């Protein structure tokens, strides 16, 4: 917790309150302990209090990993701040640990002197054994250097609900609400929104809703009445830009962005998808909005999802598929067909750890080259990447604009970190959303003898999107090479080269139709941090930090990965060293080297986890004063 100033006690709040700029809290427990719910409630309440927030949910791939084990630990981290923030925080100020496994797997992330709120009731010999602890960490001295608060949460929760006649099992389920209540007290949070949520979610099971409320209040009162805590904390509202905000997750923002893009282009949205972590929430979200004429189709497999999208695009819908790396691997052939068809559609890949099934619930950026090149033949596709949850909304609109203007499938890259993270999103006014104009050729008169050419091209090299049902424009498209203009099957060697070149040139020309690359920081200098995708927050925060320290460092974050921005080639030489942090082994670096013959420095992490800001700061500092560019 960054302490800024002290202040006097207030009525109804803890005896002593310290104003702090920001804090990072992680709730950790068994996957059955309700940590995700606890974390998201606390996040929402913090956002409602006006803080900027950023979250990082982290859960096991198994739905119910063995109870009490380290494999079953589920965590939810949130940073909330009085300043604008871009990451869920490197280090924890507060760790809530519901059992020994949660404690030992998370404690190393806590700052020295940080606060550990531990459910001491779950430290029996059996619990310790399940967690693989040979000694009790609460007693063996391993937590020296932290402020450990041992709380009998299970017992206190049971007591708070004991007259409601719940079974012990049900009563124990409420202990996450107890923990929540205690943390709410610690940060002076209002209970109202969570009480309302509790009513809405559990209201039809009245005794559960009542028990949750009791536990929540008991947690709050525990903080208020015991002498354990010498201080409460307060994080002032952040100075966010004026407007109305909603707390939004990446996948939800993508889904809403797609719906907005459909509206702005006057199209009905069709999503063809196959369930896959971490993309399924896009399917879930869109399935809920049938009254927006959103059609969702859960296909029999990834291939069918891709192919259904191609069919829907031919039919004139705004067609989208959402998947992750293994799904892209299966869709590859269909994506090639989409490229030769030159039909607009969106292919969303929410990246996760690979190869193969890899780490389904963990984040990674290792599918950039797969999306760039993973198809047979010369098969270019524009690629855009989302940098944070709220950005997903804008990227969806921009990707669809490009798809329709250039008549091409477009890839949107997200990742598990962006998809499941949440942050405040300033709700746009509909009138301010970009218009996306889509043109379909008009029917042709029966007497009109001029032939229709489905592969003729406009100034953007886009071909006409002629819809079935239009009289006079009947045509056939196929995966065999097309003759220029007519679209008829052609095996002519020169024609093939011309068509391959045209398709490539069309995608390259997109660079002239999108904004130039912006740089944050000095326009010339020692180090440029060049990043893409979900590492934005960590890179931006790290560069800001280094700028404040007086380093000559700047940050350029790429949204457009194919084609790369038109001015990037001119930007790179303005800096002596270019640092490319990536959650892979250097995929953007490879592209940059290939395109600009420019050596860059990599910072690579492949642990299924996002960058900590400090890791990037350390690297910037390490290379900044180094004489020889590495």
């Amino acid at each position, binding site marked *: 917790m960054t302490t800024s100033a002290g202040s006097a006690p207030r009525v109804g709040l803890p005896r002593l309150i310290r104003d702090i700029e920001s804090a990072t809290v992680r709730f950790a427990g068994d996957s059955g302990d309700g940590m995700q719910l606890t974390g998201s409630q606390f996040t*929402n309440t913090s*956002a409602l209090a*006006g803080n900027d927030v950023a979250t990082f949910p982290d859960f096991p791939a198994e739905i119910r990993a063995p109870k009490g084990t380290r494999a079953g630990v589920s965590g939810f981290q949130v940073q909330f701040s009085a300043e604008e923030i871009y990451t869920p925080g490197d280090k924890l100020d507060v760790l809530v640990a519901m059992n020994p496994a949660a404690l030992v797997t998370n404690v190393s992330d806590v700052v020295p002197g940080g606060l550990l709120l531990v459910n001491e009731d779950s430290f029996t010999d059996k619990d310790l054994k399940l967690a693989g602890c040979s000694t009790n960490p609460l007693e063996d001295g391993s937590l020296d250097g932290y402020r450990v608060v041992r709380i009998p949460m299970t017992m206190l929760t049971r007591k708070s609900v004991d007259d409601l006649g719940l079974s012990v099992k049900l009563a124990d389920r409420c202990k996450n609400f107890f923990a929540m209540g205690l943390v709410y007290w610690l940060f002076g949070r209002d209970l109202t*929104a969570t009480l309302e949520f509790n009513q809405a979610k559990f209201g039809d099971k009245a005794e559960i809703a009542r028990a949750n409320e009791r536990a929540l209040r008991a947690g709050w009162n525990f903080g208020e009445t015991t002498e354990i805590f010498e201080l409460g904390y307060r994080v002032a*509202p952040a100075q966010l830009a004026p*407007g*109305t*905000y*909603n*707390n939004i997750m990446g996948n939800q923002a993508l889904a*809403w962005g797609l*719906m*907005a893009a459909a*509206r702005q282009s006057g199209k*009905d949205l*069709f999503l*063809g998808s196959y369930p896959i972590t971490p993309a399924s929430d896009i399917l879930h979200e869109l399935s809920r*909005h*049938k*009254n*927006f*004429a*959103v*059609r969702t*189709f859960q*296909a*029999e*497999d990834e*291939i*069918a*999802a*891709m*192919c*259904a*999208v*191609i*069919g*829907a695009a*031919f*039919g*004139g819908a705004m*067609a989208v598929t959402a998947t992750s790396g293994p799904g892209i691997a299966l869709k590859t052939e*269909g994506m*090639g*067909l989409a490229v030769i068809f030159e039909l607009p559609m969106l292919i969303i890949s929410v990246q996760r750890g690979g190869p193969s099934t890899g780490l389904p619930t963990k984040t990674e950026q290792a599918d950039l080259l797969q999306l760039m090149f993973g198809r047979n033949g010369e098969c270019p596709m524009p690629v855009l990447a989302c940098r944070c949850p709220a950005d997903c909304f804008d990227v969806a609109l921009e990707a669809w604009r490009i798809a329709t203007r250039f008549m091409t499938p477009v890839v949107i890259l997200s990742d598990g970190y962006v998809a499941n993270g949440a942050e405040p999103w300033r709700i746009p006014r*509909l009138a301010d959303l970009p218009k996306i104009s889509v043109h379909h050729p008009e029917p042709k008169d029966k007497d009109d003898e001029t032939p229709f050419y489905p592969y003729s091209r406009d100034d953007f090299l886009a071909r006409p999107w002629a819809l*079935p*049902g*239009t*009289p006079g*424009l*009947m*045509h*056939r*498209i*196929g*995966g*065999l090479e097309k003759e220029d203009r007519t679209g*008829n*099957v052609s095996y002519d060697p020169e024609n093939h080269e011309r068509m391959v070149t045209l398709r490539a040139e069309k995608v390259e020309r997109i660079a002239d139709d999108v904004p130039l690359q912006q740089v944050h920081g000095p326009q010339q200098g020692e180090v440029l941090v060049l990043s893409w995708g979900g590492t934005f927050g960590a890179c931006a925060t790290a560069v800001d930090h280094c700028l404040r320290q007086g380093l000559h460092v700047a940050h350029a974050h790429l949204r457009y990965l194919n084609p790369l921005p038109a001015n990037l080639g001119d930007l790179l030489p303005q800096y002596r060293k270019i640092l490319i942090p990536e959650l892979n082994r250097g995929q953007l670096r490879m592209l940059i080297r290939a395109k600009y013959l420019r050596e860059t420095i990599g910072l690579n992490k492949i642990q299924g986890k996002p960058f900590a800001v400090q890791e990037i700061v350390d690297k910037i500092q390490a290379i900044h004063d180094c004489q020889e560019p590495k």
Partner: protein
Amino acid sequence: MSSAELPVLTAAQFASDQDVRWCPGCGDYSILAQMRRIMPRLGIPLEKIVFVSGIGCSSRFPYYMNTYGIHGIHGRAPAIATGLKAVRPDLQVWVITGDGDGLSIGGSHLMHCIRRNMDINIVLFNNRIYGLTKGQYSPTSPLGQVTKSTPMGAIDNPLHPISIAIGCEASFVARSIDVNIKHLAMVLQRAAEHQGASFVEVYQNCIVFNDRAFQYATDRDTKLDNVLELEHGKPLVFGKNREKGIRLNGLDPEVVTLGNGISEADLLVHDERAPEPSLAYLLSRLRHEDGFPEAIGVFRAVDAARYDHELNRQIQLAQAKRGIGDLEKLFHTGDTWTVT
């Protein structure tokens, strides 16, 4: 749509300007001709029809129809057609596939398209061979068939398209033969008129790689003994002199000769509208190699809920119940807060 208002189309108007490139004598020509022939009878304008195909000889079909068309990728035509039909229920959508395309690489898509009962007409050209890749055995090639990839004979059990379609809860299943042009036209027209997924298997001769695979069913001398033409409500009678029939013996069919105390009243009666598909399945199991005539005609034609129809109905329902979606409202759902 009332056909009275439409200009009368001719078969020639359904021919595209592309040269047909199948081998001379290929059974595909006949199927193409019958398709063009029945099209004007459907009363649907050219621009409202889409042919979708995968890869294989049969899959060139869309290029030859003057309608909209998609020549897709191997095995995926049912999936492409599903997406198209889901967003464009106003179109008549056809899938043209083959035994390799539809039952091998695309087996799963075919299965799901049928079980969803998409309002799509699927025509599977069964020539029991891979033609386009020049003569490997296919999933419908009989055991022991010697081909380029099975020099000692095929050792995998063949699939039977009609049995599979019925197993997928098909609401319309039929079979015809490329050279039985009148029958073929009738079956195609019935498929077009059926609401829901129509599955039609056509025995198609590949003159180059598997000539005479269906000789037993097409030769003047043998066909009447080897083919059983199904007619709704009629007993299962066949044979040169219509002297034979199919009777149930327990749960098994048997061939009987009429006379000597056996009359048509003892025979199985075809019922294409039977709610249970048992009869249709039984008919799909009649095999030439087992001493039975093979059935052609409509095996099954029943009403069932259609996916594309239900998909759009849910949208109307949701709009009626919750009103047409309002993005502004959606964006403000949940806990919002205002910064001034």
